[in-house]
């Protein structure tokens, strides 16, 4: 079974980890545009009151490189990034998970942010 543990003070959010802690930009984008907005908003509203606490916690770790994080910290970081992606429909008053008149997600090809495989550039 996939390990879903988070740093102990964020244990209450482990229920979101299997679906909402995703390590790459493309994965998080695809999660948003393939999930009904009602489900997205359950995650967004549950986590939102704790986002500052989560970011403050991550900010105390002396690195800006997600690949240096321990697995529970990394899952928390990925979940925070997912919140940033998932908050968009609710914040912008969309009734669905994506804008209607936009380039189809499946026709957008993500590739490595940098041409050279630097882990720090791949991670978030």
């Amino acid at each position: 079974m996939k390990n879903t543990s988070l740093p102990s003070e964020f244990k209450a959010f482990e229920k979101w980890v299997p679906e909402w802690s995703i390590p790459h930009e493309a994965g998080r984008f695809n999660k948003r545009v393939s999930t009904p907005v009602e489900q997205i908003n359950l995650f967004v509203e549950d986590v939102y009151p704790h986002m500052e606490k989560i970011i403050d916690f991550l900010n105390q770790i002396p690195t800006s490189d997600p690949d240096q994080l321990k697995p529970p910290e990394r899952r928390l970081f990925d979940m925070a990034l997912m919140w940033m992606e998932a908050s968009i429909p609710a914040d912008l008053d969309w009734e669905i998970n994506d804008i209607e008149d936009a380039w189809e997600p499946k026709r957008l090809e993500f590739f490595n942010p940098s041409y050279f495989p630097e882990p720090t550039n791949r991670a978030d």
Partner: protein
Amino acid sequence: MTAQVDSLIRGVVDDLPSRINVGVQITPEHYALEKESIWRRAWMSIGHTQDVPNKGSYFVYDIPTFNYSLIVVRGQDDQVRVFHNICRHRGNKLVREPVGTRAGFTCNFHGWSFNTQGDLRLITDVNEFEKLDKKQLSMIPVHTEIWNSLIFINLAKEPHCTLKEWLGEMYGQYDNYFENQEKVASFKAIVNTNWHLAVNAFTEGYHTLYLHKSTARDYQGGKSNPQRHRPHMDFFDRHHRYSAPGNPDKVFVRGEKLAAKYGKLMIPAFDFNFEGLPPGINAAKHDKWAFDVVEFFPNIVMLIGNYWHNEITYWPIDAGRTLITNQAWAYKTKNLGERISRSYFRSRVRDVFREDLNTLEAQQTALSSGMMDEVILSRQEMALRHHFKVSRQMMEGQL
């Protein structure tokens, strides 16, 4: 009375027609002429020196316009060079791994080997060949010049001008800007549209009030500039740029507030700070400056902000298809909070970009159907008028 802002326009615009017969310019016949008169002759950026950080770092760059595969490599002498990705023996593709770091390149067909400076170092079973001069069989170089970390190439046999001449007045105006950012996102799409339409979609601000009403509703303009007129536009011989007006009354949503607390503001939220930027950026020093849009004719449109910039690259595949790549760059982060903040703006811009892409195939279909003779361009779309003038002048050999 409605508030109105008049755009300050610098450069020659009297001769720019407001009606353009775009239908003619997107035909296969026209494109066939453009390939040689524009794309063969222009200086075009294909990446940054940061993409090849170490001696031996390389990446492969494909240019569908000419069916070229190129290798960009930093040699052992620290110089960045560009070569055709071709083995000089039988024309096999020399490198197939898209990125990496190597001491040299060895063809997998018959083992011929080149160093990172492009010199042929080894011909296997050399005595079976007749009179070979290795010096004549180096990797085929591409004319290359570096400008502020951008790697420009020219695909002509001999470039008709230097990169400095090509960039004109902009040449000295962007020092120490690009070097301080890192790449944070890359995505691409093959769009069934002509390259002119693809470039034009990103070089006017008129559309933002309407097309982006759901994704970036109040990021520009505001009460003092409700029509979002560009405060300033510059038109040069080949290129142009304009500044976009930020909205001082923008209402921040939750994600923006969080991102603002933990990192620097990036598009679509602005702090109007332009202190310390080089003179080409916010060139008219507009006090509510959001970002600049710069067209480096013909293949790059950049959105240039204070802590970020986006590079949209265009390569025609044929008259009706264009490869469009968007690469986002941003300030280097000191902590994870900044990374989370940065990622938020990256997500927001992606949706805006997808809206821009989505107009292109419809326009292509309509304008190639012959049902409409001309497109009509406002003063706020002056950059499109200029784009077509530059295209024409290049085709006539004037530029």
